[in-house]
């Protein structure tokens, strides 16, 4: 009885469907005052939808929401804010063209004699940020600040707005460094101690165990259960999330060992002294056919920059790249595709998927681009190629003519992979291919990379999750602060890599 009095938000029987997909089915969710409540689940589980309903951005098809013992229908984000529910989204939703202070206080600026009092506003903003242990020039344009600071501003605003009682953080740590993440956790703990209810959505399970009091697990739009963190071991959590055992991962170790035998000795791609001022210092790198090379390092260490240089998106300031012994002259995506190099980019929404085009069109796109304007693949040819890869990668879609935006994140990633596989590359660079994807699909993709290596392709695998990199790489390259600092064999232990990443300590 006493517990439910402490509940500030109760959602019961929430259901929501979109054209073609049932996003949520009969989900319950409760939130207590003064707790950090983690919401986890694979992509497509329904986390985002649930939060959008709570914050008034969507309306449920069924179910009730109770806020502070009052059953209510949350009409709009403004309404939600009025109820004390504030949200900080993954993509910082602030106005980058305004100053930091404005972003924190806009809509509630201090007024003097009917006009905005800029001086007081700036002082107030500075004060609020101080409360979060952040100190900076609040008259700067927000767009000129780092993502971490933008997020702090977003949180500051979320707190500032009408006595927030519930703070929703949707994947807040995706773009933060370890230090910045710790800072964020400090802020969260402080707010919790002041009675704030915090919903923390993340796919970083370590972080869940660091700060969360309770965990709610969603899967395929259904509620699996809500547990106290202390009573749920990690292995059990993952099992609940994917409902499979981890034997697939053991399989992979076997595969890796086998395919390691087939690595060719000739150098496929040789980069010497390649670098770009401001993004990555000159590095040397050798890639062989049949090999999976993993890139390890923290966010911001230069991994994506290295990938971009190898793919020709950026021009190196010096050094040379040779392929099959021949120097590379045409630095461009088109040139790279012609040479048999493919890059599956990090941000699939902004750099990969072409939302309104069909699955088929997305798959054949790079291939068509390499053929040029005039060698057109007719619809029969397109259909065949698309079908081949839909089968191969097990892409879930009713037909190849489905606009790709209707697919789940994991399937979209597979479509992008298919696109690059269709160009029949000899070197495939994958930048965070498993980001924001359910555990099941993650395993599929990792297995795929190994099998590609076995076919004789060279793969470069970039991931923030060190565990993945260790699992499938024959060789690991470590980056730190935009510099390549070490290379290891594929059977190196985590500790050694962590030490390399951390630096001399």
């Amino acid at each position, binding site marked *: 009885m006493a517990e439910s009095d402490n509940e500030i938000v109760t959602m019961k029987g929430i259901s929501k*469907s979109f*054209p*073609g*997909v*049932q996003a949520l089915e009969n989900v319950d969710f409760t939130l207590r005052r003064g707790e950090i409540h983690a919401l986890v689940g694979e992509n497509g589980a329904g986390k985002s939808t649930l939060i959008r309903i709570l914050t008034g951005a969507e309306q449920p098809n069924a179910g009730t929401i109770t806020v502070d013992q009052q059953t209510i229908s949350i009409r709009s984000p403004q309404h939600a804010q009025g109820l004390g529910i504030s949200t900080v989204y993954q993509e910082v939703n602030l106005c980058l063209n305004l100053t930091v202070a404005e972003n924190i206080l806009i809509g509630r600026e201090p007024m003097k004699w009917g006009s905005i009092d800029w001086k007081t506003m700036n002082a107030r903003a500075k004060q609020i940020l101080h409360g979060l242990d952040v100190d900076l020039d609040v008259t700067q344009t927000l767009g000129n600040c780092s993502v971490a600071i933008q997020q702090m501003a977003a949180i500051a605003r979320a707190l500032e707005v009408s006595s927030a009682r519930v703070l929703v953080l949707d994947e807040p740590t995706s773009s933060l460094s370890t230090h910045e993440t710790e800072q964020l956790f400090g802020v969260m703990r402080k707010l919790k101690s002041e009675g704030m209810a915090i919903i923390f959505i993340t796919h970083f399970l370590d972080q869940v165990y660091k700060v969360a009091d309770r965990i709610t697990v969603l899967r*395929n739009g259904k509620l699996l259960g809500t547990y106290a963190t202390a009573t749920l071991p990690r292995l059990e959590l993952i099992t609940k999330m994917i409902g499979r055992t981890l034997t697939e991962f053991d399989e992979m170790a076997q595969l890796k060992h086998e395919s390691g035998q087939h690595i060719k000795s000739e150098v496929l791609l040789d980069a010497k002294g390649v670098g770009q001022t401001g993004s990555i210092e000159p590095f040397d790198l050798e890639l062989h056919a049949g090999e999976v090379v993993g890139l390890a390092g923290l966010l911001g260490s230069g991994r994506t920059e290295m990938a971009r240089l190898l793919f020709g*998106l950026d021009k190196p300031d010096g050094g040379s790249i040779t392929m099959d012994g021949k120097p590379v002259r045409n630095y*461009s*995506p*088109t040139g*790279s*595709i012609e040479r048999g190099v493919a*890059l599956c*980019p990090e941000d699939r929404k*902004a*750099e*990969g*998927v*072409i*939302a*309104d*085009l069909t699955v088929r*069109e997305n798959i054949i*796109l*790079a291939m*068509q*681009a*390499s*053929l*040029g*304007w*005039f*060698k*057109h*693949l007719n619809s029969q040819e397109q*259909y065949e190629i698309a*079908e081949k890869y*839909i089968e191969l990668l097990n892409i*879930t*879609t*009713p*037909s*190849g*003519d489905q606009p790709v935006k209707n697919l789940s994140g994991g399937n979209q990633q597979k479509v992008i992979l298919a*696109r690059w596989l269709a160009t029949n590359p000899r070197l495939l660079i994958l930048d965070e291919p498993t980001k924001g994807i359910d555990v099941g699909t993650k395993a599929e993709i990792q297995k795929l990379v190994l099998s590609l290596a076995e076919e004789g392709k060279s793969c470069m695998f970039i991931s923030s999750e060190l565990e993945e990199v260790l699992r499938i790489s024959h060789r690991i390259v470590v980056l730190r602060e935009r510099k390549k600092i070490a290379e290891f064999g594929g059977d190196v232990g985590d500790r050694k890599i962590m030490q390399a990443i951390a630096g001399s300590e």
Partner: protein
Amino acid sequence: MKRSKSSFEWRKVTESKLFFPLVALALILLFDLIFIPTFFHITFQQGHLYGSLIDILRNSMPVVALAIGMTLVIATGGVDLSVGAIMAIVSSVAALLMNPFVLGTQLQAIKNNPTYSYSPFWVVILLPLIVATICGLWNGLLVAHGKIQPMVATLILMISGRGIAQLITNSQKIQIFYGPFRYIGNGWILLPFSLFIVVFLYVLAWLLTRRTAIGLFIESVGINSRSSLFSGIDEKKIKLFAYVFCGFCAGIAGLIATSNISTSDATSLGLNTELDAILAVVIGGTLLGAGGRFSLLASAIGGLVMQAVTTSMYAIGVSANSLLAVKGVVVILIILLYAQQVQGLIRKITGRTKLKETKP
């Protein structure tokens, strides 16, 4: 899991890009049917078909030509405001090529001679088209390489282009007597000759966009230019192509329009026509500002719709000036047909509900 190749569904018809423009056209023709009994009357006179419907065809050709080129530009996420000015420039150049003396001495006798032209016919046609294409190239360079926002970049030529056109002819209206040139707008092969020109242009555009990869690339660049870049599509070249082609289409439209009135009028030729062309494309379902999927045929129908409105209004006696107001209202109605809410309503009425798709 069974996957179907596209099969026929009623939904495909209503979702097709052609649906709404055809509905719009049908509504206007319905209006005509009810209020103007003689509208659909087609007779055979002077060796060609004659009637209000034929008028619509003939007068809409410049706008339809513009719309074909404009579709590609809008599909890349841009817009070309300068097509009207390009039409004026083309008009001035052509007139001057036919009779460069018109600004100086009065060669009265020669002036009225329908067989006289200072430059050979093919030069009179080709040179202005080249000029128009160069204008398109200018726009394309500003947008694709200069990375200037399209509305802003084409605004420059829109403002100064008309000045240039007036500069060429010293703001004089020049009458054109040269027979072969007049045939473009006034000739008939049962149907207006300009129709054949525009059909040819349409076929050319269709071949270039749907029988090559260019159409797919244009849509791709319009939807997401960054992803397209990563896939190896050079957005610069595609946008350049779109603006160059649009300039070329404006050239054709300019020649037709000049021939239609047998006069080169740098001040008012093509004035506000760019707006008609943009509207035609919007009616045809291509998204202004965003770009992406496009349909040339739908835009052409959009052009017909715009002209049908004008001709119908004249037929019921609305004066030229008040026509503007009516056009404005009609445009609003048509655009509302596209508004999300209304579309949803129509879908409900036609009994279409989306099938629930089950996850495997």
